[in-house]
């Protein structure tokens, strides 16, 4: 399959000034990530807050410049292109953010919001613009009389529909969805997920779906990568990852996720203590070792590399051959058996 995006050893650190003496330190938000996106697939990125998943999404779209590494979009190296040379990329990509009320301009009505990307990319003909706006509005399930409204006059679900319409206005190839349903209620979340899946089928979109909700991720993603502290710890096809989970962190993440089915309630859960480490001084060796009950000498000193542990199943852990945590994720299998 053709890769739409390829990312190699991508790093991004942010400088922060701390304290009154302004001693600056590096926050390593993304710290050496390799990944690829196939055309037309959904790649899910899961992780807790501060693991660098949002930064990764922004890097892939080149909204921010990486510190080092390489990003290819459709076989063009976009790592160091200037903003002016990136205009074509902007046309072929879109982004949907978590909180639609914050990502829509409160002073622009829906019509101007949707018109903006077209104008920026040189479409001036009024009829074309109007036609396109109406067409997209229908696609995302809104109607014409909402065009003159302002964001505060419509509901959260409708706001997110507008944000999605804006992202796909120029017929992009890739859409980065950064927690698109996290701020929405369950009933609205279902509507938005249905919409996203339908748009993907109709327009052959590629999604980078960033979320912390594993239940949602399982439903929408073809492949999943698990991030922790700026690194990828495990990545595989969705079914493989859920059925043959290997990394202790992934298991703890799955095990902590509450499943809305009392029959799969488990008293035997793998819950790790502690909290994600600071990104300024990440632990040496494996990033997860301070929380990992299986950590030993090597884990504290040597950083594990991402290796292919099973077919298309990549893993960064020294101890995966010795430990077997599958009992803890069996309830996820039950979840899948009922489904497939």
């Amino acid at each position, binding site marked *: 399959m053709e890769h739409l995006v390829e990312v190699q050893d991508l790093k991004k650190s942010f400088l922060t000034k701390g304290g009154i003496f302004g001693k600056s330190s590096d926050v390593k938000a993304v710290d050496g990530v390799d990944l690829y996106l196939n055309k037309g697939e959904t790649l899910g990125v899961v992780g*807790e*807050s501060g693991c660098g998943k949002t930064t990764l999404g922004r890097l892939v779209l080149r909204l921010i410049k990486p510190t080092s590494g390489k990003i290819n979009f459709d076989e063009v190296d976009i790592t160091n292109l200037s903003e002016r040379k990136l205009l074509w990329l902007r046309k072929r990509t879109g982004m949907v953010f978590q909180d639609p009320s914050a990502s829509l301009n409160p002073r622009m009505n829906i019509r101007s919001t949707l018109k903006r990307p077209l104008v920026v990319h040189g479409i001036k003909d009024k009829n074309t613009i109007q036609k396109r706006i109406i067409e997209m509005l229908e696609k995302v399930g809104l109607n014409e009389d909402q065009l003159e409204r302002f964001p505060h006059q419509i*509901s959260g*679900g*409708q706001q997110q529909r507008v944000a999605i319409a804006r992202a796909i206005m120029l017929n992009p190839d890739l859409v980065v969805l950064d927690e698109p349903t996290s701020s929405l*209620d*369950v*009933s*609205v*979340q*279902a*509507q938005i*997920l*249905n919409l996203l*899946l*339908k748009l993907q089928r109709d327009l052959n979109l590629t999604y980078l779906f960033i979320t*912390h909700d*594993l*239940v*949602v991720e*399982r*439903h*929408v993603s073809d492949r999943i990568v698990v991030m922790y502290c700026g690194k990828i710890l495990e990545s595989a096809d*969705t079914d493989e990852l859920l059925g043959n989970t290997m990394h202790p962190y992934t298991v*703890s*993440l799955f*095990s*902590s*996720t*509450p*499943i*809305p*089915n*009392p*029959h*799969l*309630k488990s008293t035997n*859960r793998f*819950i*790790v*203590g502690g*909290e*994600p480490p600071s990104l300024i001084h990440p632990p040496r060796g494996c990033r997860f070792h301070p929380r990992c009950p299986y950590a030993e000498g090597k884990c504290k000193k040597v950083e594990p590399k991402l290796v292919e542990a099973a077919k298309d199943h990549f893993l960064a852990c020294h101890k995966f051959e010795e430990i077997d945590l599958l009992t803890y994720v069996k309830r996820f299998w039950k*979840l899948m058996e*009922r*489904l*497939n």
Partner: protein
Amino acid sequence: MPLLDVKGLKTYFYTNRGVVKAVDGASFTVNENEIFCLVGETGCGKSVTALSIMRLIFPPGKILSGKALYKEEDLLKIPESEMQKIRGREISMVFQNPMNSLNPVFTIGYQISEAPTVHFNLSKKEAWKRTTDLIRDVKITDADTRAKCYPHVLSGGMRQRTMMAMMLSCNPNLLIADEPTTSLDVTIQAQILDLLIEIKKKRRMSVILITHNFGLVAEFGDRVAVMYCGKVVEIGDVTTIFRNPLHPYTRGLLRCLPIGYKRKSKLGFIPGTLPSPIDTPSGCSFHPRCEHSTKSCKLREPELVEYEKNHFVACHLYER
């Protein structure tokens, strides 16, 4: 005999734009030593219900009518001085965002010791001992130094633990936890909830867990009440509600969850949007979105009836 019996609770807010019927006739009971979940979408009145029980409603809000019987005493009727003895001592509450409920200019040790000092007349030394014990109870290591910390140096999980220590400081019989883990990550959420369950078992208290997350309900709840537009539409054991949901709204909500579906298939959904709280529909407030709605749904409000043992539903479909 239930620990808490809420009957026909109505709390309205009188705003410039109209009367917001935040809670409009909610009824439920909480038994001893159980985890009772209040679940519903944004604006359905779950938080206001909790605040009404604690009598923490301020103008423009007003508790119009209803009863909240706690140990045969109506919390909504007793004088404020009596209520102050109940708050913290008998019933206490944990809020969603710990940073907003902790005072930034006092150490956490001081804040935890405040309530027991007032309720039990403790000396400074006794209060300090109690505080460090509590901090140990919520599994914060190094209690003596942590007690001298200010809230901003603690992480989100630690702050929520501090809140729990504060709420447990006077040994309440009922703990109201309003979305206690919504601002936390899943691994931290699991730690906090496991801690909550452990403390609940140890102290034999009841918990009202307010959440919008059906995962938490299934994982931790004993009984659950589903709220819609300020009313309780269905109550039952968690297993019963998930196996045999009766109310069309509950059924719709459970169908919306992305489980039990083939990957990338279409999820069930509830048509329409939540009605405005100022202008709630007549009769059954769910009727404009309901596939079974009939004429009587528009005219008459259904009552909460016991359809089978311990399974209550407010819907005309099940009235006999």
